[in-house]
């Protein structure tokens, strides 16, 4: 299992803050996004790669090539706008 978290406009578009997801195999962020996009609707819209999304694994920013492993906390969110 992995813990998924969604923030800001992404959270609002998907309508959920997060979920636990069984991990079929070790995959990278791009593959995980493809898996989520395949749910269709808002998921397709958000994860199909047309919108700028950032990902963090265990609370550290990562590139889309980073590998996700069982037990990881994986967060997706739009580019940050603090400060």
């Amino acid at each position, binding site marked *: 299992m992995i813990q998924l978290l969604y923030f800001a406009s992404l959270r609002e578009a998907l309508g959920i803050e997060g979920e636990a997801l069984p991990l079929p195999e070790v995959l990278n962020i791009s593959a995980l996004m493809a898996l989520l996009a395949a749910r269709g609707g808002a998921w397709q819209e958000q994860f199909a790669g047309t919108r700028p999304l950032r990902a*963090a694994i265990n609370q550290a920013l990562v590139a889309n090539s980073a590998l996700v492993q069982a037990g990881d906390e994986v*967060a997706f969110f739009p580019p940050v706008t603090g*400060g």
Partner: protein
Amino acid sequence: MTVSVQQADFDAGEEIRRLRLENPEAGAVVSFVGQVRDLNQGEEVASLTLEHYPGMTEKSLTAIITQAQQRWAILDVTVIHRIGTLQPMDQIVLVAVSSAHRGEAFNACEFIMDYLKTEAPFWKKETTSSGEHWLAARDSDQSAKQRWHE
């Protein structure tokens, strides 16, 4: 270093005074205070709501400060970032840096702000007369950060 993510307002003057008086070898304290502007791209702002990623926010700010400490001879750093709903002219963020000489404090303070703007997981949602909308990241913030790699 002091890092705080909080709903409550802060007293910038008191934080600067603390950095000064706790560091008698400090000749300089450089600080940045960000406030909610009353207008954004011509629209009157009624309120601004800041969301963040609890846990990651503090780690991210700590990592940014650590990078600044490795890069410049600075004495101490305080970062306070507010979350929740703010009004125009409310303070959003404070970055204050003490150092023996001013150049280091100026560089480190601006570096921390540039990285905070592009890496720390905060998101702003603005409420104006036309409704609510999430702010888009600014390209100028990315280029401000890129400068530090040159």
